[in-house]
């Protein structure tokens, strides 16, 4: 059967993608930001993931305002990097594990999570930046070293799903994966955040203390953390910091007890605090 063995939390700041695409990751501004992902890339190699289940959000790119699904599961064979207004990122097309994706879709719906199924979808920086950061530079003609099942969550139009709903969806995703027959090693990514506000007069808000507490509680108090009300994200972590509800999906899909094997935190990447964590299920 397929198994989820580890979870990754990771910011998906668009400027990090730009820095990688233009070869600027070693300049003074970006070096400390990317240094924290060197260990990650080693870990990713050793983890030997077959499939990454990637939880992210679209930023008004593939989805316009005409249709706003709360949870949309990518079931297409492949997903092209979208043009976000300055041309598509020069990174490989993302390939799905399509039979597993449709299995997960069916399993989730019967498990009472009424997700939307996407048979065509382009993906923006929310999905491609975590792949770049975790796997390193890959050009248009390369292939990503894993297959990817995308789960796109609405966190742009308030309200996004609650943290509790996300945490429980993570548990349902785990049940879905474990009922898939093929022997596959699945790593789940929860992306977005950390504290940031992109708009109006309070833009630039960063809350290191809050972010650190969030990272700590992923291991020490995941259930309590998932109950945090939306207003606390907005007030403490900025209007766009509410993206972090997506991390609970990743956390819910793991064992109750996990081991934190890596953490990285850096301010700033453009307008944002970059947070990253790797959590492994305690092996039986």
């Amino acid at each position, binding site marked *: 059967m397929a198994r989820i063995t580890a979870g990754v939390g990771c910011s998906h700041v*668009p*400027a990090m993608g730009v820095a990688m695409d233009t070869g600027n990751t070693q300049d003074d501004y970006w070096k400390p930001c990317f240094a924290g992902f060197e260990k990650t890339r080693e870990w990713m190699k050793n983890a030997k993931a077959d499939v990454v289940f990637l939880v992210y959000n679209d*930023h*008004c*790119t593939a989805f*316009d*305002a*005409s249709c*706003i699904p709360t949870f949309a599961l990518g079931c297409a064979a492949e997903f092209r990097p*979208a*043009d*976000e*207004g*300055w041309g598509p990122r020069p990174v490989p097309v993302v390939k799905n594990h399509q039979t597993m994706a449709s299995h997960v879709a069916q399993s989730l719906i019967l498990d009472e999570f009424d997700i939307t199924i996407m048979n065509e979808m382009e993906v923006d920086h929310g999905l491609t930046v975590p792949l770049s950061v975790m796997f390193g530079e890959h050009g248009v003609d390369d292939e990503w070293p894993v297959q990817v099942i995308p789960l796109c969550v609405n966190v*742009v*139009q*308030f*309200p996004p799903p609650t943290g509790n709903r996300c945490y429980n969806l993570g548990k349902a995703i785990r049940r879905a994966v474990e009922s898939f027959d093929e022997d596959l090693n699945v790593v789940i990514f929860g992306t977005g955040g950390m*504290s940031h*506000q*992109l*708009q*109006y*007069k*309070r*833009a*630039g*808000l*960063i*809350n*290191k203390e*809050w972010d650190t507490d969030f990272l700590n509680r992923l291991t020490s108090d995941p259930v309590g953390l998932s109950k945090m*009300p*939306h*207003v606390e994200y*907005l*007030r*403490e972590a900025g*209007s*766009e910091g509410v993206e972090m509800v997506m991390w609970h999906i990743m956390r819910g899909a793991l064992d109750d007890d996990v081991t934190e094997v890596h953490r990285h935190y850096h*301010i*700033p990447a*453009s*307008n944002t*605090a970059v947070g990253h964590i790797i959590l492994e299920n305690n092996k039986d």
Partner: protein
Amino acid sequence: MGIKKDYEDIPGTYVFDADAGRRGYQLNQFCISLRLQKNRDAFNADEEAYLDQYSMTAEQRQAVLDRDWNGMLALGGNIYYTSKLAANDGINFQGLAGIMTGMGQEKYRKMMLDGGRSPDGNRYQSEWDEKDKD
């Protein structure tokens, strides 16, 4: 009875909720159309004619023409949409934040390098009102 909005006392922040989404729909649909080069070309050739395709309010239309970035947010725009118009104008997210905060890009960039805007004194509207009185 509507849903109680417990986030309205956060200062300097427009929460893009479903009500804002309803008000800003045409404005946001216009903005996202600029994702594609052919639409940017058409808009840049004749802004007024291009805007005629969208039944936005007179205030929204004027805010677009004036590049009143905070005004667009007040009228139901969302930053991920308005950033497409900004990108068309050659303004990135950080440049836009410099404008919206009134700080200017250099001062804003320096604030971010110094660790960003502290949440202290920036959580409640009442804290900003106090500051204004001083």
